């Protein structure tokens, strides 16, 4: 799956989880940028991404994630099978 498509889908997930259609998500977006994005919301975001892309993040991948771009890279790698 191309990186742009992954980012587009992640954007949709964020809109659904935060119930806010006006959210704009970029590679650099992180918990600092969105008011409601706390550690508990993060759990829901991870679960939603895992469900949407049909993947599981490894423990270390979750703890190392800094921004949306990191998540998109991991998903892309998992799709490429590497």
């Amino acid at each position, binding site marked *: 799956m191309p990186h742009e498509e992954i980012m587009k889908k992640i954007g949709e*997930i964020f809109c659904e989880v935060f*119930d806010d259609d006006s959210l704009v998500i970029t590679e650099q977006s992180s918990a600092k940028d969105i008011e409601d994005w706390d550690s508990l919301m993060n759990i*829901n975001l*991870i679960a939603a991404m895992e469900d949407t892309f049909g993947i599981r993040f490894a423990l270390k991948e979750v703890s190392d994630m800094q921004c949306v771009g990191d998540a998109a890279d991991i998903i892309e790698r998992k799709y490429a099978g590497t």
Partner: protein
Amino acid sequence: MQELDYPFDAEKIIKGKKRLKRQLLESGKATVKKKIAVLGGYTTSDIVSCIELFLLNNGIEPVFYESEYDRFYQDAVFDNPELESFAPDIIYICTCVRNISEFPKVSDTRERTDELLNAETERFRSVWEALESRYHCPIIQNNFEYPLVRRLGNLDRSDYRGAVNFVSRINAVFDAYALEHEQFYICDVNYISADYGLKKWSDPSYWYLYKYAVAVPAIPYLAFNAANIIKAIFGKNKKGLVLDLDNTIWGGVVGDDGAENLRIGPDTSEGQMYSEFQRYLKGFKDIGVLLNIDSKNDEENALQGLNHPDSILRPEDFIVIKANWENKDSNFRAIASELNLGEDSLVFIDDNPAERHIVREQIPGAGVPELGDVSSFMTDIDRSGFFETVSLSDDDMKRNEMYRENIERDKAVRSFSNYDEYLRSLEMKAEIEPFNPLYIQRIAQLTNKTNQFNLTTRRYTLSEIEDIADSDDYITLYGKLEDRFGDNGVVSLLIGRKEGNTCHMDLWLMSCRVLKRDMELAMADVLADRCLEAGITEIVGYYYPTRKNKMVENFYASLGFERVSLDEQGNSVWKLPLEGYTHKNTLIELL
């Protein structure tokens, strides 16, 4: 909201929690507020937010107190001003197998494992007892899922040194406590984790990342199960099943195939499955669920099907049978009205998606579970939790009998020339007395279930009823009515609060199964007598309108009360001076 009905898409609920909550609040579906304290042994944030969704979907708007991470013991046992001022209506203790302090070692003696068991269960018992004495409200306690690993393999189960064995023993102690304590309920995590798949349920990554003992995608299942207990405690259970016939309770179409060719009974695998399903349905009668039929069929054919020698459900198992060519939704409405029940208290079971769609669209609040094929009908209904049973009263077990007697009475009424003559023929006898411990459970249950003939729609917990029954500040009465067709049990309640020479009616309700029997007059007479004995000169009645209690809008007027106020919301206050009160009931003999 169908997204929250079983079978739900758990991931979609997690993802759409915020939106779902907004939509539910906008729909105005929730009509009662309840305060729920969740005391956790692990992270409970998403459990709380999912319980909130399921309760809103059942008409309850919860407010939560949530303990800090793993503080369930401290929050319960030590002084807790925050929880005290919160004053919970219900407490949910959400713990997991990781909260067990110490497991037996293989080197332990039998006595040592008994000590461990005792220490662990005493720790929990002290939590329950502290909560019970401080908050007097229902308590829900998770039992334990099995450990994720079993080092001794199969022996882990049977040997007292095994962890699986230890968990089972603790759970058994919890069950015994529940059996002895009326307001204590087990949330059977042991069952639902098995149902979900233990390995997925207890996936350790969720524990190490977020301190969740339950995998995030499994959280809606836990929350749904806990919410079912809560809504059942607050009287939001469904009360009856409305069943289709063809391809729902037997294979084939009786009108086309003929009763003799229906697939039911031991001859085919499909027939065996329908038999098992029928046996499952019939068992609902024993817990007071009313069975009815809504089928597009000629009545004659429908009865032939039910009289099939292998049909386990017989015509006499049903209260109302509607077999005709009317639309399913209008039959459904007619059944609710004949039973004197709200349309939202019945569950519609039909294999045909189009019929389910009509009923779902036309009858807001009706239970309409999605069904797979016959092999899954049982679990589809079972997991929906419509009839979550929190206690088994004698009354529940007799309910089908009572409703059938009512239908008999309806038939009898047609043969009399006037209604009084009919009522006299019933030879009614009533027992009207102050609340007594024998009926306390039924009394609490009635305050939570009665919606139509209910002037104030105040809900009471068991302990509140006990307190009121013991207090000198109240006049309480329950009314039990029997007649020549049978005993209706406790059907009416009054709670009057004494203030000087006045008695304020906090509660006046009557079960709709005895409408138009003059029972309300008999209750009023006894109330007046008791008030006069207590030196009371005036009774003040209150009517608070709800979506369901319009039938009693003018009840106090009919008893001769005078209205003293009426506000914009329709709340009214009524007064009756007792001087010169004359008895109104002439048809019911008092026991």
